[in-house]
């Protein structure tokens, strides 16, 4: 076996130009398929990373806007309690309220996202100064706020450090809120995907309700589930419980799994297209390899005759040519694999790392398996005919052949 491999490598070297031209197709095909795998894996990691910025067990529930009686479907504070009690797996539910508004600090007036939150945290950004909204703040509807990294920098550009702004006030219209905590940057966030539901200035949801929503129906409810319950089950149960309480009204839910799926779907399509192109170039490559093997068989008819006369059976010759086909195909696949990993990595560095700051590890093992698989398939599909022709060479004819 080793002798066959050595022999093939010698032959490839002797016909270097021809070998390279033959293998280009294979290299391109394998490189295309592997690079898209790497890029897709990188993108998937980036997307996952982005959603790590928020608690993925969150969903939102709203009354459907088109239904018989929108009046009857209106949500109120009592529904929060209902969800907490009646839907197993719900950690907490708070009125959803977020708005873009001008926030004033001593000298700064900045348009920021402002909303109510619970003491159970929705954002996963770390607290770098003070503390997050506490249970007591929610219970007392205290006039306090927590600033995001962005809000801290925009509202207090001259602050020495986050601790320095604790106890300072920010104003929304005439209302004053005392800063009790500052969050650090979320290394990854949904903002990189163009959707950001984290607040820049968060106040206790009870405060938000008292100050802005009192007497009006809730726009929606934000529910935080625990990790044991599946989001789909939670959503279905929440819809049912609310529907029962509101005389059969219809509710809609929204979560980020939907986005994740959309994005995955997009990369699935791109991956399929690139893989199809790769598959076509693999087909062309296979035909090229078949051609070079046929040429090799007719060029080496005499050699085959010698081997047969010396004692090689048809089966032995068949194996020899299969080995040659495999060595050719495998070397092409291997080069293609390295190129694919290189291109995929480059794509990650240029496009993905900039957004997410992460780079997925290169899938070496899968790539090697994939390259071996391609080489095997190409060998079996395109090596069989030339190998059969080689095995059927008549030694008498071959030895007469000059």
């Amino acid at each position, binding site marked *: 076996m080793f*002798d066959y491999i050595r022999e093939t490598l010698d032959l490839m070297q002797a016909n270097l130009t021809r070998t390279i031209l033959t293998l280009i197709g294979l290299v391109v095909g394998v490189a295309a398929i592997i690079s898209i795998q790497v890029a897709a894996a990188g993108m998937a990691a980036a997307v996952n990373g982005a959603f790590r910025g928020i608690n993925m067990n969150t969903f939102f529930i709203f009354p459907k806007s088109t239904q018989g009686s929108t009046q009857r479907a209106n949500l109120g504070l009592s529904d929060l309690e209902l969800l907490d009690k009646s839907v197993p797996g719900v950690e907490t539910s708070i009125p959803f309220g977020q708005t873009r508004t001008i926030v004033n600090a001593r000298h700064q007036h900045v348009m920021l996202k402002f909303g109510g939150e619970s003491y159970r945290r929705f954002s996963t950004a770390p607290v770098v100064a003070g503390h997050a909204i506490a249970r007591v703040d929610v219970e007392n509807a205290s006039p306090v706020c927590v600033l995001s990294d962005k809000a801290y920098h925009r509202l207090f550009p001259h602050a020495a450090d986050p601790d320095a702004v604790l106890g300072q006030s920010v104003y929304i219209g005439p209302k004053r809120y005392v800063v009790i905590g500052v969050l650090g940057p979320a290394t990854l966030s949904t903002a990189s995907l163009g959707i950001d539901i984290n607040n820049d200035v968060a106040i206790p949801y009870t405060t938000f309700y008292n100050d802005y929503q009192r007497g009006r129906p809730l726009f929606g409810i934000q529910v935080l589930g625990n990790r044991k319950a599946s989001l789909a089950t939670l959503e279905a149960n929440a819809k049912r419980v609310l529907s029962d309480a509101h005389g059969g009204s219809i509710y809609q839910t929204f979560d980020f799994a939907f986005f994740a799926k959309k994005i995955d779907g997009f990369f699935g399509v791109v991956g399929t297209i690139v893989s199809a192109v790769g598959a076509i170039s693999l087909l062309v490559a296979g035909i090229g390899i078949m051609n070079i093997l046929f040429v090799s068989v007719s060029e080496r008819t005499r050699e085959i005759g*010698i081997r047969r*006369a*010396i*004692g090689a*059976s*048809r089966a032995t010759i068949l194996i020899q040519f299969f080995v040659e086909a495999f060595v050719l195909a495998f070397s092409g696949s291997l080069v293609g694999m390295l190129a694919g990993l290189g291109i995929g990595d480059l794509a990650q560095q240029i496009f993905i790392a900039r957004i997410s700051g992460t780079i997925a590890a290169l899938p070496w093992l899968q790539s090697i398996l994939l390259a071996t698989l391609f080489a095997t398939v190409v060998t079996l599909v395109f090596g069989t005919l030339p190998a059969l022709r080689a095995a059927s060479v008549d*030694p*008498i004819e071959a*030895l007469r052949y000059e």
Partner: protein
Amino acid sequence: MNDIAIDLQEIVKTYKTGTIEVHALRGVNLRIQRGEYIAIMGPSGSGKSTLMNVIGCLDRPTSGNYRLDGIDLSTLDDRALAKIRLEKLGFIFQGFNLLPRTDAMKNVSLPLFYAKVSPKERRERARAALAEVGLADRGHHKPSELSGGQQQRVAIARALINNPAVLLADEPTGNLDSATSEEILTLFESLHRSGRTIVVVTHDEEVAERANRVVRLRDGLILSDLPTSRGHFSEGSIVQREAIPQL
């Protein structure tokens, strides 16, 4: 041990080219004893190449019986015939037929590769075989770096390496000048003295004269089967006399 190396009985070989039938061999009877040095002669078209191919198990007779070293070959398939060629026969060709790009050692050890001998043993035996033909120092030369005579000696070493029952040479000196031919024929003689069975197919009287027995073919039949001046009849000669009435 069988004393008869080759036993051909009523060998007929007919080729069909289109609708025309060519009777290459029309019933050849030939017995070759172990240790004989025999030349097969004949003009072109006499069937000597076909006979050579049949003896070399490269071709099957249309009818007739062939026993090589006691083994009946008529029932064997391709794989088994390949094994016979590997173990019982050593081929020496006019055009040397060494693998190009492959050095002498590799060429000589090729049959051992097919016989699944370990690489280490292959090397050792190839070295010994090369030494036997006087090319101990040429192991790493490729065929293109060797003279014609040296190439033929490499081919002989290759033919010998599996210790075959029969050495089969097809015009072994056809591509060589007279001095080199002499070298090769001397080598054959020394191989004969050491007990090898040698069958040489040739149209060169001088080459045939070096053998101990000459079989002449014409039109697919044995025309004569006689000892040369060097030859001497052994016990097997009675069998050969029985074959003579063919004339």
